[in-house]
């Protein structure tokens, strides 16, 4: 079914994020992921797309596909950092981890029975894998920008599932969620700006003076 096709694409984007070495590329991939998530609800349901689904889709595509990438690129320009990702963990190991995470995600998904609303057996693995990928990006990369990116991916992972079962949650909550995520990323952008101003760099490994 078509939804599976989209989910597979999402999985691949995540893998690409783990593997790619260029910040710009990562941001673009994240944007693509956002768009994919935006259109996911259309196929997520048997019943014809309601108005609210449309609204949510539009919102999602605009935010995740346009606004966030723009914000991130702007932050990059502000910080005029080199385009390298500068990972703690290399790209090949990252990919290997990605495979491991994928396996874990599938294993966990077997623990959760399918229900009428989860229309694809790929939904849960894709969501979990997105989360794992996001967490891994945050953990394994040095740059503050990378961490915002990781947070976005994590958010997308959650959203994958949400979009899959969107029928069950109400519009108000959807909007609230989107709003919150937006503000979160916005504030993070501001913080990056400040960090850059304070330290003239956005390597978070220098952000470790507070400790015991």
């Amino acid at each position: 079914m078509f939804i599976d096709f989209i989910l597979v694409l999402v999985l691949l984007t995540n893998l690409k994020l783990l593997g790619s070495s260029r910040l710009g590329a990562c941001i673009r991939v994240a944007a693509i992921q956002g768009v994919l998530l935006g259109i996911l609800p259309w196929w997520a349901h048997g019943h014809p797309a309601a108005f609210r689904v449309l609204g949510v889709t539009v919102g999602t595509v605009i935010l995740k596909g346009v606004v966030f990438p723009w914000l991130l690129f702007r932050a990059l320009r502000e910080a005029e950092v080199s385009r390298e990702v500068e990972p703690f963990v290399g790209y090949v190991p990252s990919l290997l981890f990605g495979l491991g995470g994928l396996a874990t995600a599938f294993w966990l998904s077997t623990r959760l029975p399918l229900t009428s609303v989860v229309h694809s057996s790929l939904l849960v693995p894709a969501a979990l894998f997105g989360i794992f990928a996001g967490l891994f990006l945050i953990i394994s990369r040095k740059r503050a920008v990378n961490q915002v990116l990781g947070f976005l991916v994590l958010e997308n992972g959650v959203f994958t599932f949400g979009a899959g079962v969107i029928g069950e949650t109400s519009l108000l909550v959807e909007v609230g969620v989107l709003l919150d995520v937006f503000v979160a990323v916005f504030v993070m952008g501001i913080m990056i700006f400040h960090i850059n101003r304070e330290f003239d760099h956005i390597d978070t490994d220098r952000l470790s003076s507070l400790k015991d």
Partner: protein
Amino acid sequence: MISALILIPFVAGLVAFIPQPAGRRRLLLFGVGAVHAVLTACCWVQMPDAILGGWLALDALGLLFLSLTSALFLAAAIYSQGYLAEAGGQSYEDAEEGFLVDNAPEAVFIGCLFFFLGAMTLVTVSQHFGVLWVAIEATTLASAPLIYFHRHHRSLEATWKYLLICSVGIALALLGNFFISVAAIGPGQEQGRLTLTELVARGSRLQTPWLKAGFLLLLVGYGTKMGLAPMHTWLPDAHSESPSVISALLSGALLNCAFLGILRATQICQAAGLGTFSQDLLIVLGMVSLGVAAVFILGQTDFKRLLAYSSVEHMGLLAIGAGLGGAASFGAMFHAVNHSLAKAALFFVAGHLLLLYRTKSIADVKGVLRAAPVSGVLWLAGFFAITGMPPFGTFLSEFTILKAAFEQGRYAIAAACLLFLALIFIGMATAFLGMTQGPPGAGAPTPRRVAWTMLLPPAALAAFVLLLGLFVPGSLSQLLHDAAQAVGGL
């Protein structure tokens, strides 16, 4: 009523951003705090009706935490009058390195305070899990600028960690919400709504695996916000770097809100007959928190971090209390009250010390009892209150929790609790006694009076804790009992 409770702070927040003389803005701060407190008091008299089709309603649990939040905000509002006069303004001499840093504009500070209050109020009144999630995330976003009030690199770092870690946690909690919503839909059932009453009503018909996974994610997510080890890592940084008044609110009110989120989830588990499942998790995380707190309190060199870790300890106690269930959940509720009051008082006094001594290092603060008698007495009283010494309320609540542990024959847990509490007491005694007693010594502060607006709140809070240790008013204990029953205790 509820709408008023929520809207007033948000409106005030917007008003605060309108350019106006500082004095008026501070007055507004106090006024809103007072009004909010009065409204909350009214809720004690008569429980307000639900609005938005039951999405927003006030039950015993909510009222308890709402009252705490409101009371602490009022105290903070009074305290801020003096604090802003002292440390507010355009620039501020950094305590550690001594260079001048500029503050965030006061408008931002006060405005965000209002939003913070509004968000927390929303948390306490929301019966719908989606709304609850939105509200809790909102508290994070509203409080981030507050932590970054004094704009130097350490507060910046703290804010960044706070923001990132909490956002990650909250994101996980969102997935938890989705899972629960799926759990609510049995095969071939009508679509579920995420209101508490609905879910509790469905109870045993919820799908166990989804519910389990959902609760787990919520626990980790909100637990991050609540400061349960090992997700507590943002807490000491944020508490130590933010202005003391903010630390007081974070520790006294915000952590409770996150705890409320977890309690809501446990309510469902109770209804679905997964009580032991949720309680095991809570106890495990609680014990870990106690242990971690003990590790970092012993030999701690920074008194605000010390207080922060003590918050981790008490959050652990709350989790253990809720996890033990039965009489212990009453103890947990009671302990939440005591801890909020005592810890807020301590942070307020920590603010005095920071102003007087210009340092957060325990070793450099000496002879407070002689240098600043009132602050010294309050500091000492707060110490005995937070370590659960009679005649302070914390003793009674900790006693209740421990009693339940023994009653249930969980000797290992009880023994571990006693051990960790003893270690923590040793650590804190070493720090506090060293600071308060003896001659002021070399690093003695230039004797200056602390404004009464900064003395009154901690004194009042400490008096409350003392009062709760001498007797528990009937209405309060009734409320605590109802709250405990709501989470499956008695």
